[in-house]
């Protein structure tokens, strides 16, 4: 085989792999898209080619979703819980990360790893005792139960990410500020926090997307339809009896997923850095 042919074959194989994986991984979202805009008749007619529109596209499923379901309530609940969780996460993780990066010395590294390991403790181990604690606190079926519990998985990872971020700030900056009369804590608030905005933003986005992705706690603690989060409300309550309203169901999946995916994509490299710290130099 000549070099030219070989190169052509390599490129072909490369294209094939990339396209095949893109189709496999992206297909369900195409499927959500086409289901959203198909007429009911078109969806359930097995004679029609399901990959394309046989009838003209329709907005009937979107109208149903926005006018006759609690979808917007769930989105609102998710935004409210997300906001509170982000605030709690920042208030606790920022100082903790700074302490680990600068003040605790030799212990910092170990404590950092310890706090990261708590990220590995899964909700499916904790949800049974937590359901009882939530009941004792009188928070059953309340969004406050989620505001209380969600920081348990946003704080560890956020602390870990911010710790790496603070370590990359030159110490001399703070030393100079302290020579100019700021206390250590003052330097943290007035100097370190403002120049760490991109790291803070990463943590905000990360915590928020984690809130939207959570399923087990919301399913366990929240029992009424109107208090539900979008990630549980859509797959559980858009099913009426045994009938799935696939059009509006897929519309809800698509509309919810795309903004989250776009946000996450922008900050992805930082998250990955968080997961691979240590293993990649």
């Amino acid at each position, binding site marked *: 085989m000549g070099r030219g042919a070989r190169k052509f074959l390599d490129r072909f194989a490369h294209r094939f*792999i*990339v396209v095949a*994986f*893109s189709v496999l*991984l*992206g297909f*369900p*979202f195409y499927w959500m898209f086409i289901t959203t805009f198909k007429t009911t008749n078109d969806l359930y007619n*097995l004679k029609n080619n*399901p990959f394309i529109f046989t009838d003209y596209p329709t907005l009937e499923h979107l109208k149903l979703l926005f006018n006759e379901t609690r979808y917007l309530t769930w989105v609102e609940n998710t935004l409210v819980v997300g906001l509170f969780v982000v605030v*709690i996460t920042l208030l*606790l993780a920022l*100082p*903790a990360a*700074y*302490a680990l990066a*600068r*003040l*605790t010395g030799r212990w910092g590294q170990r*404590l950092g*790893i310890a706090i990261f*390991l*708590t990220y*590995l*403790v*899964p*909700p*499916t*181990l*904790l*949800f*049974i*005792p*937590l359901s*009882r604690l939530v009941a004792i606190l009188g928070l059953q079926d309340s969004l406050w139960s989620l505001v209380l*519990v969600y920081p348990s998985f946003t*704080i*560890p990872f956020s*602390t870990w990410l911010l710790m790496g971020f603070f370590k990359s700030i030159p110490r001399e900056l703070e030393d100079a500020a302290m020579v100019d009369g700021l206390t*250590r*804590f003052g330097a*943290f608030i007035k100097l370190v926090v403002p120049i760490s905005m991109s790291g803070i933003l990463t943590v905000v986005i990360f915590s928020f*997307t984690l809130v939207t*992705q959570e*399923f087990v706690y919301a399913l*366990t603690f929240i029992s009424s339809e109107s208090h539900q989060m979008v990630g549980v409300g859509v797959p559980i309550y858009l099913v009426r009896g045994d009938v*799935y309203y*696939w059009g509006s*169901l*897929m519309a809800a*999946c698509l509309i919810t*997923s795309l903004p989250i*995916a776009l946000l*996450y994509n922008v900050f992805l490299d930082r998250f*990955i850095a968080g*997961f*691979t710290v*240590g*293993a990649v*130099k």
Partner: protein
Amino acid sequence: MAISNRKLGAAMFLPAIVYVLAVIGLPFVLAFIYSVGDVKIASVGYHFVGLDNFRSVLQSPSFRRSLYDSIVFTVATQLVVLVGSTILSIALKDKFRGRGIVRFLILLPWVAPVSLGAIGWKWILDSIYSVINWLLVAIHLVRPFDTPMWLGEPTLAMISVVAVESWRLLPFSTVILLAGLTAIPRDIPEAAAVDGADFWRTLFQITIPMMLPIVNVAILFGVIFTFTDMTVVYILTRGGPYDSTQVLPSLAFFTGILGGDLAEGAAISIFLVPILIAVAYLMLRVAHRTEVA
């Protein structure tokens, strides 16, 4: 100065650690206490019952089945993800036109909420309107009205939940491996090529061995994410048909929350702990090794 630094450090660190201990540490300990007690959802008080819950759990066929299913689910998913993400990360390593959009498409399953992705698959695998079945009929691989019941037949249901879980984890593993690949100095594979090693030899003798530490990280996270996940199973099959896709976390949910037997549910979820400890230990070893290196 040093002492005041230490005090300030403790004061800044303490709120976070107290919060995490209260919301993770306390329920973690309670899970063990419940598992040797008699707590029901509506019950008051607590009586120690020793290992009764574990005894009854171990005798239950549903539990044995779900322990087996959990292992199959986890191992099969990791195998698919490992092979898939190795191929994909090598294909994505070098820049090419359209890489940005490909990256976005490939990441979608990981970044979209898992429950919504799973319900999308439920529609794709629908018993009557499955698009996969339509395709199989169209290319005459199966006959109409005799199409596979993806979620209704035990073996197919397990294959389906493994496929969907792999679909979800593949992007995560791929980006982790990509991070590892880009960290391999370019001149090493290039030098091998100059010495006459072809693509496959370079791949198996240089690239893959150099990726091993990062592959470990990807596998460890993957095992945790899969072994402790109940969302995909809950949405696709609810553990059925006949418990054939029931995994430990979903069984704990059905027993402890829906069935109201918190103690037995806790006993079931305790079986997740050995895997967690093993992974945590291995992860610390990876972290330690790279620190020393």
